[in-house]
């Protein structure tokens, strides 16, 4: 057989440690794929027996990229358990802290973690700056905005900087990239636009991160969220802080609309053939990189103060199966199970509800072969990530899932932004069910978030100006923490994120988290269902088997966060309490 087994380890431009192995046939088509996380830290074991109020800061260290999202989920789990509803100011501040994370994180993901899968840096040296300027205006028009950079001189300056860099020296972080690979579709001018925006985005993201720091104290790892509210009283009372937030948001929004969106239209159009090629897929639907096509969102960003799981959300919750947007199913948290058949943990073999799972590490290692490589033992266990299931099925989570669920539910705001994208790009809705679609959905969501944050910051300023400066809801810790349980189920930039906590006598009895990349990066389950990454790779044609460009393009489109995915185990399984989700908070 002419089949070939490729190892990609490390997968770079992600958070954490990830390995992918793919089997390609004689036509260089991927026929099998395995995703494996190669790091384990045991975060939940560390949370046990601590004061529940202290877990948020620790949970945040699950990930330094989606920084602040685990923090808030953990705090919310405690608030749910204590039945505490936070004041309006606190809700708005948290929305702004998380919203700032979304726009920052999505932007950094697109340019610094993903763009080089579409943009050939070296080819940009051959571009004509005059034509580049015209091209840049053209894509901004498609997006319906003013181009962020449109002067030929600006593109020329970047090109000269790049030329010098390429001609004379070592390439640093661009060294040994896949430059010249056949599956780069952009013209030299389009590549130069990409490189120019890549560099500018490094600058823009610093300022976007400041928005989180204004109300969070710092970024990464903000520090102002506490059980019951937020601590940044002086920052919300100071009009200058609000003003700074607004001006940073405005500046960032100009880049999002004038560069990020146009670039996504450009890439979407230039890679439309791949994105609509239903032959190159696992299910025969959607396009390259589509994968399992089941999408789930827990919903997030509370729009009113009715408290836990009653408030209306910016992103609605729901499930869409098989890319069929005519039907949306409600999320029932009791239907979530986890399977360890192929994960490095002891297990009974059958999928278990995460709250009763007894998980003890059982590392069976890699298989060293004569070629000096170590391969995953794919017939047995091969990852530190468990395989979560919803109602026995694999799910994909993330911006695409949020946009698809919102669209299918007819959410006004989401339908408008998604509809706008499809109309302007002239692409069919099926384009969303692909690698490119995942990337486009993230950009659509970024614009939506940037726009809605303006409303929130004004609402906050107005509320404070009206004389409401409360930021914290009082509770009697000794009373409420005797025996309770709660869930923080919402959305991280990368998708559905849940933290569950059981509390007894003021201490954490059990802590569980199921994070976005667990859903997406998980291995097969005992019935052999592929994980979202794995399925997304099947059917993809690799133009050069020595260069795994198409593989990383698809993997990056999920925005992997592997340190997140791996902590979701408890090494000390014996004492795990039985935990059920409070029916009041079921979706």
């Amino acid at each position, binding site marked *: 057989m002419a089949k070939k087994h490729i190892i990609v*380890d490390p997968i770079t431009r992600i958070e954490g440690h990830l390995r992918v192995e793919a089997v390609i046939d004689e036509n260089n088509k991927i026929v099998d794929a395995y995703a494996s996380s190669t790091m384990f830290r045991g975060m939940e074991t560390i949370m046990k027996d601590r004061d529940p109020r202290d877990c948020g*800061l620790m949970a945040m260290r699950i990930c330094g990229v989606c920084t602040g999202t685990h923090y808030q989920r953990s705090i919310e789990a405690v608030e749910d358990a204590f039945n505490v509803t936070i004041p309006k100011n606190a809700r708005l501040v948290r929305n702004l802290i998380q919203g700032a994370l979304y726009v920052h994180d999505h932007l950094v993901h697109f340019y610094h973690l993903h763009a080089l899968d579409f943009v050939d840096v070296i080819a940009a040296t051959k571009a004509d700056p005059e034509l580049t300027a015209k091209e840049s205006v053209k894509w901004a028009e498609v997006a319906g905005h003013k181009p962020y950079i449109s002067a030929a001189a600006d593109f020329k300056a970047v090109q000269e900087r790049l030329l*010098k860099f390429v001609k004379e*020296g*070592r390439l*640093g972080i661009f*060294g040994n990239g896949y430059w010249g690979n056949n599956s780069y579709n952009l013209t030299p001018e389009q590549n130069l636009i990409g490189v120019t925006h890549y560099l500018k985005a490094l600058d823009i993201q*610093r300022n976007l991160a400041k928005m989180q*720091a204004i109300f969070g104290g710092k970024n990464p790892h903000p520090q102002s969220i506490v059980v019951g509210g937020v601590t940044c009283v002086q920052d919300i009372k100071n009009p200058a802080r609000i003003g700074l937030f607004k001006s940073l948001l405005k500046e960032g929004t100009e880049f999002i609309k004038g560069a990020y969106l146009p670039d996504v239209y450009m890439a979407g159009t230039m890679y439309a053939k791949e994105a609509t090629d239903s032959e190159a897929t696992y299910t025969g639907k959607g396009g390259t990189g589509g994968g399992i096509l089941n999408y789930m969102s827990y919903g997030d960003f509370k729009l009113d103060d009715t408290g836990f799981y009653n408030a209306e959300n910016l992103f609605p919750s729901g499930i869409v199966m098989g890319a069929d947007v005519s039907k949306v199913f409600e999320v029932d948290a009791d239907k979530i199970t986890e399977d360890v058949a192929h994960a490095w943990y002891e297990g009974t073999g059958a999928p278990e509800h995460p709250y009763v799972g007894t998980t003890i590490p059982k590392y069976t290692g890699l298989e060293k072969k004569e070629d000096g490589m170590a391969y995953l033992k794919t017939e047995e266990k091969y990852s530190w990530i468990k395989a979560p299931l919803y109602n026995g099925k694999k799910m994909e989570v993330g911006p695409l899932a949020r946009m698809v669920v919102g669209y299918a539910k007819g959410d006004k705001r989401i339908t408008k932004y998604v509809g706008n994208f499809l109309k302007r790009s002239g692409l069919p809705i099926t384009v969303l069910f692909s690698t490119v679609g995942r990337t486009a959905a993230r950009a659509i969501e970024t614009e939506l978030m940037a726009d809605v944050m303006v409303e929130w910051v004004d609402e906050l300023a107005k509320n404070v100006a009206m004389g409401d400066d409360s*930021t914290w809801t009082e509770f009697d810790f000794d009373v409420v923490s005797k025996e309770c349980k709660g869930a923080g189920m919402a959305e991280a930039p990368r998708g559905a994120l849940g933290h569950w906590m059981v509390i007894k006598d003021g201490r954490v009895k059990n802590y569980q988290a199921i994070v976005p990349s667990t859903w997406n990066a998980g291995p097969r389950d005992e019935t052999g269902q592929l994980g979202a990454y794995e399925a997304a790779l099947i059917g993809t044609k690799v133009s050069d088997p020595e260069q795994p460009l198409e593989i990383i393009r698809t993997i990056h489109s999920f925005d992997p966060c592997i340190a997140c995915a791996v902590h979701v185990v408890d090494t000390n399984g014996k004492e795990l309490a039985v935990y059920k989700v409070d029916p009041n908070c079921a979706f």
Partner: protein
Amino acid sequence: MGIDKQDSVKSLFTAQSAKVDTNRGDAYYEELYAQCRGRLDELKKLAPLNNRMDFKESIEDEGLERRDFLKWASATTAMLMLPASFTPLVAEAAVMMNRVPVIWIELSDCAGNTEALIRSDGPKIDEIILDIISLEFNETLLAASGHQAEKQLEDAVEHFKGKYLLFVEGAVPMGLNGQYGTIGANGETFHDHLQRLAKDAAAIVAVGSCATFGGIPAAAPNPTDAVGVMDVVKGKPIINIPACPANPSNMVGVILHYVLTGGIPELDSLLRPKFAFGYRIHDNCERRAHFDAGEYVEEWGDEGAKNNFCLYKVGCKGPMTFNNCSIVRYNEGVNWPVGVGRGCIGCSEPDFWDKYAYERPMANANIKAPTGGVEKTVDEFGLGLLTAAGVGIAIHAAASAVAGKKENQGEA
């Protein structure tokens, strides 16, 4: 505990790690100036390692004014605790930074320090990675994956043998024979990976709480037996830049110091550069006057909170923590944890997750740190004594007594 309170306070105030000489006298600085001058002249003779455009040119390209650059240089000079006369040397060293190759690896980490690095404002991150340092390898930013990524790393090690600075982010898991973390096609453990790359490094810079002291993976009960770099790498100069994440100004400061002097900066007993960690948060805190006046936030959102009172009683660990946060703050000085009304969690100190990171003063922490901790001592020094300025500080004495045994190894 058997620790004499008076002695503790006294030993703290006289301990090397708690005091920084900001004026060493003319003779010292003249000698240092000459040394730096010589070093820079040496460097000038070398071709830039990456042959990229120099910093000066790039600032002009970016439309930055020369005076902005000089402003940055003088601020950095002050941060490095050098007299103003060193400003031109610092500026020159910045231009020269592209002679320093940097390899950055990630072990048991969350990428928070890489994220912090890309928030760097002086110099800015695009300048750092394209023009200033020669960033040869960084997993979060590297274009190539898999075999091509490994090759890029091998090439860099080969090419810059003995010359590169190895930045390490993340702890080293020692349990399960190191197999809690592996990297690369041959499944090398994080520990072996670190040792291999440390061997040919000029010096190692451990960034963030995990790489320095084990951080979150090493918090009790430390499920993977995680340790910091200095616990496993021997025979190489190591600089620790703790905090969660480390402040990018301190990362740049260390690189700059290396370019300027060819050596590593003066370190405290925990191998932390004194220019950054010679300050106690508490001593430079904007809310210090309220501490001295006995005005505290008693609970979140109260009148005290609305008046920016001291956060000690809601758990601020500024009195026990050494870092320059209260001076440089974060994200271009936009804010910091005390500014935002939360307080310090002591993240640049060893074992802070088990000792400090909670929202109560140590006296009523409501938690037994699983690894022990120093609550008893704190109780003794508790709230009753708080109004006497500086007494909260005594708490640190217990910690530094433990750390004291490393005191002398740390001196460069």
